[in-house]
Every structure is written in C-alpha cells, then in structure tokens.
C-alpha cells in the first residue's frame, strides 16, 4: 500500500503539488489521472523520494523508501522509458540495477524473458525503439519481484499488441495482490485497467475512489430508443415526466426512466422496439468534466469542452418537449 499525506512541492512561486493526500491499496490497479501539468509526474517522483517534498511524506507499506534494506525487492518503478544510457547494453543496464540490491544475475535473464527482450539483451539500448525501451523499463521495475509497482505512462510507445500485453500484465500483478499505481493519458485504457482512481488537478486532489464511483458521481445516464412508433413512445414518456431528446433519425435519448421501464411502456403501447440501449458517459467524458476547471494548459482558441464528446442530453424546455420527428428538441 502507498500512502501519501500532505504532499507539497513548490518551484519558486509555483505550487506544483498542494497538500495532496491519497492511498493506493494492495491487490488493485490504481490509476493516476490529471490534466497536463497537474503534478502527476512530480507526485510519482516524490513517492520514490527522487523529488524532495517541501511538506508531507509518502509511506510504502508503512515505510519510507530508504527504510527498505533492498528497495527493489519491495518497490519497482518505471517513470520514463528514456532513462537509459544509449551505449550501455540492455543486460548491463539491468545487471547494474540488480547488483545494487544484491539480486542474482539470473533475475536479469528472467525479466528480459518476461518482457520479450531476451534476443536483444546484448544490444546497446541506443538502437532500441520506444516500445523496446518501455519493455526494458518494465523489466527493470520487475527485477526484484516487488510488492509495489509505480508506472508513469507505461503504454507510451507500445503498439496495440503491446498495449494489450501491458493491460494484462498490470492486471495480473494486481491479481497477485501487488500494489499497482499507474498514470496514463489513455483514458480508455485506464477504464479497462484501473480498479481505483486518484484524480488530481493543479496539484490538488479532485477524486479518490473506485472507477465506477468516479463515473457514477459525475455521469448522467440515459437510454437510446429506436422504434417505428417513436412519436407514440416519446409522448407517453414525456407525459410520465421523462426528458426526451432527439438523437438522430428515428431515435430518441431518454433521461429518467430505466431501459426496463421504457420497454414495459412500449409493450403496453403495443409498440415495436428496434433499440433500447442504456448509456453512460465514458471515463473520458467524466474526466474532462471534473477537471475542466483544473486544466493548466489548453489548446489556443478552442474551448476544451468543444473537443469533448457530446454530453448526455440536457433537459428539454417544457414548450419544446415531445417525441423526435414531431418537432421535439
């Protein structure tokens, strides 16, 4: 378990991380999200004592990193795939790390096999692709077979097959009871990997908890309905107090009743349904929504919301309510 309490980091007058506290539980993959410049990488470096915190502390399984006699046996980290000397061979890079913790040479061969780099073990890393460097970084993190793993953007540079491998790899580590703390910009990927989330913006905590809770806390849910008798269904739903919005030709989005309730209503009306789909905003939608006020760097001109996926349907004004195709909004 990783526990951060009151972490604060300042660069001159800028506060990069501001009194940040969170917990990363064992046996779960915890995603670390935040807009660019939110302080994710700084926080991760403070977790590993690479950046000196101005206030606060991090404990890993109740200890500081320096308290572990052989830190690699307890904590493994991959912060950036580029942290390599280009003229050093892959096996020497790992062997130097392993030697610092008294790990046997066979661990180097083992982790190289684990990440699929055995064949290039004797090659200088300057010739490696980003994906290969990423795998080498992962091998370094796994050298000591640690209980706690910290990864900053581990999917960077990986091809689709590599991303799938990484996803299974991280989930497998958590299944073994390890603590996995991982940051990523790939929100769709994070939605598939993470059990819990720590979301920060401008260095402060925005959310901490399970992914489902994060999505539920902010997302609106709606049901998409397609039917040849759309107007009849829409009218009935509107009379029942539901919010009904046109969702393209022959479809409406309904906010309020559940899919089951709409299905029963349609049956009672003798209407045929071609689609009845419950929908929820994605992790990406929710992330953009909750961090909208914490975006430090934005593209010029365009509002961030303009780039976001379409939000769930807003409640229609009473005068415009009604089924799609019948002048409904």
């Amino acid at each position, binding site marked *: 378990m990783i526990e951060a309490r009151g972490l604060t980091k300042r660069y001159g007058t800028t506060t990069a991380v501001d009194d940040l506290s969170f917990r990363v539980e064992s046996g779960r993959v915890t995603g670390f999200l935040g807009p660019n410049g939110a302080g994710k990488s700084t926080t991760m470096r403070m977790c590993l004592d*690479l950046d000196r915190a101005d206030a606060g502390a991090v404990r890993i399984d109740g200890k500081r990193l*320096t308290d572990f006699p052989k830190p690699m046996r307890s904590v493994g980290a991959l*912060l*950036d795939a580029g942290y*390599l*000397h280009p*003229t050093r061979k892959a096996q020497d890079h790992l062997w130097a*790390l392993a030697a*610092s913790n008294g790990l046997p040479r066979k661990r180097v061969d083992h982790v190289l096999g684990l990440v699929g780099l055995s064949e290039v073990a004797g090659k200088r890393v300057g010739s490696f692709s980003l994906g290969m460097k990423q795998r080498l970084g992962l091998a*370094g993190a796994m050298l000591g077979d640690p209980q706690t793993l910290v990864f900053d953007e581990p999917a960077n540079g990986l091809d689709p097959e590599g991303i799938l491998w990484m996803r299974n790899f991280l989930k497998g580590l958590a299944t073994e009871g390890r603590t996995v703390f991982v940051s990523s910009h790939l929100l769709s990927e994070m939605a598939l990997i993470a059990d819990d989330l720590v979301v920060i913006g401008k260095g402060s905590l925005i959310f901490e908890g399970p992914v489902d809770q994060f999505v539920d806390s902010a997302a609106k849910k709606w049901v998409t309905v397609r039917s040849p008798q759309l107007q009849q269904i829409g009218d009935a739903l509107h009379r029942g107090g539901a919010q009904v919005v046109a969702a393209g030709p022959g479809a409406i989005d309904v906010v309020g009743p559940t899919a089951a309730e709409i299905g029963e209503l349609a049956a009672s009306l003798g209407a045929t349904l071609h689609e009845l789909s419950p929908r929820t905003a994605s992790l990406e939608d929710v992330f953009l929504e909750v961090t909208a006020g914490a975006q430090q760097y934005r593209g010029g001109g365009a509002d961030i919301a303009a780039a976001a996926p379409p939000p769930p349907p807003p409640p229609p004004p009473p005068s415009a309510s009604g089924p799609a195709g019948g002048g409904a909004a």
Partner: protein
Amino acid sequence: MIDLIRSEWIKFRSVRSTLIMALAGGALTVLFAVLIANDQRGDSFRSTNHFGDVTAGVTVAIFLFGTLGVQIIGQEYRFNTIRPTLTAAPWRMRVLVAKLVVVCLATAVVAAIMLAICALIGTLMLDPFTIDGVDQRIIWATILFAMGWAMYGMALGAIVRQPIAGIVILLIQGLVAEPLLAQFVKATAEWVPFQNGVQMTARGSDDLFRPVLSGGIYFFVFTFVLWGIGAYLVNKRDA
C-alpha cells in the same frame, strides 16, 4: 555498500566513453614516455636518466582521469539514469561514495599500470636509468593525484550535473585559468588547486607554487571541500 560498488563498477565498465577515456590516459602517458626516452637517448651530455623524466605525459593523462570523474556522475544526470539508480538505491550519499570508490580505484589502477610501463620503457631505452627516492615519491604522488583529480572532476560533475560543462570547466581551469592567473597575479599562485597539486608529480618544484607536501595537502583539502559541496547538492536537489 559492496553491492553499490559492484553496481557502479558494472556501470563504469559498460559504457564506451569511460573505458576509452581511461585507456587513452594510459596510452598517452606511454606515448610521451617513448618520445621523451627516444629524445634523451640521443643526448650525450646526460649523465643519468631518472624515472621522473619520462613521466611528463602524466599531466595529460590526469586531465583525462578528471573527465572520468565528471562523467561518472554527470552522465547519470545527462541521461536521467540517476532516477532508476536512486529508485533502486535511494541512499544518495552511499551511491556517491560507491561512485567515488570506483572512479578512484579505476584511475589508481590505470595510473599504476601506465607508470609501470613508463619504468619499463625507461629501462629498455635509457642507460643509465635510475629510480631514486624522488622518483619513488613521484610514483605514489602520481597515483594519489590521479585519484584526487578524478574526485575533483566528480565534484564538478555533481555540482553542474552536465558532463560537457563539467569537462570544459575542468580543462579551462587546469590548462588556461590557473596558469594564467598564477603568472599574472602572482599572489594567487599558491591558491590555485590543480597547479599546486601537480607539484607532487614533478621532480623539481616550481617556486611560484607551494612546495610538494603543502601543495599536495592544499589540493586534497580543496578537493574534499568541493566534493562535499557536490554531495550536499546531490542530496538536497531533486534527482
């Protein structure tokens, strides 16, 4: 600590530039020794040839050993390998001491080998060739000074955290700034570290600088203080 020293040794020997630099230092000294011995062989006025006469290339080699010191820490920052290093071994002072041990031992070994080859060249090419008490002092002083200058380089590397900048400072200081300062502002001569330290490795001392013993002591005090500043900064700053 042994594990950390082993780790640093693997890093040291697994990078081309450090190996090239160490070998180049040794090779240059030997080359100078051959050229000097060849020159002295034709000098019929010389009654004897001392070991200390053929080790003039040592100064050049020692500069290269200084760059090794810069590189052993500067390259870690240049390529950001300091981060995996300090994640694996978060005790910064211990890591620095391990680096110091490795770079000093490596330079000591290369220096000892190059001096042995110099002695062999003198024996083979010069007659008569002697190694007297002063020469014996030069042997030990050269090895010590090589280690000290590597430590000096490491201190600079830890302060500037950039190998190129560290090497440039090292070369300009030793080859340009100190000699010029000592020549034109004579009062500064006994306070320039490299020139005072190098007196240990010469047969005859230069009156401009401190005598052999005090020059050596001053150089090492200066070097230890500088290394302490570098270590403090490495410990205090973000990696």
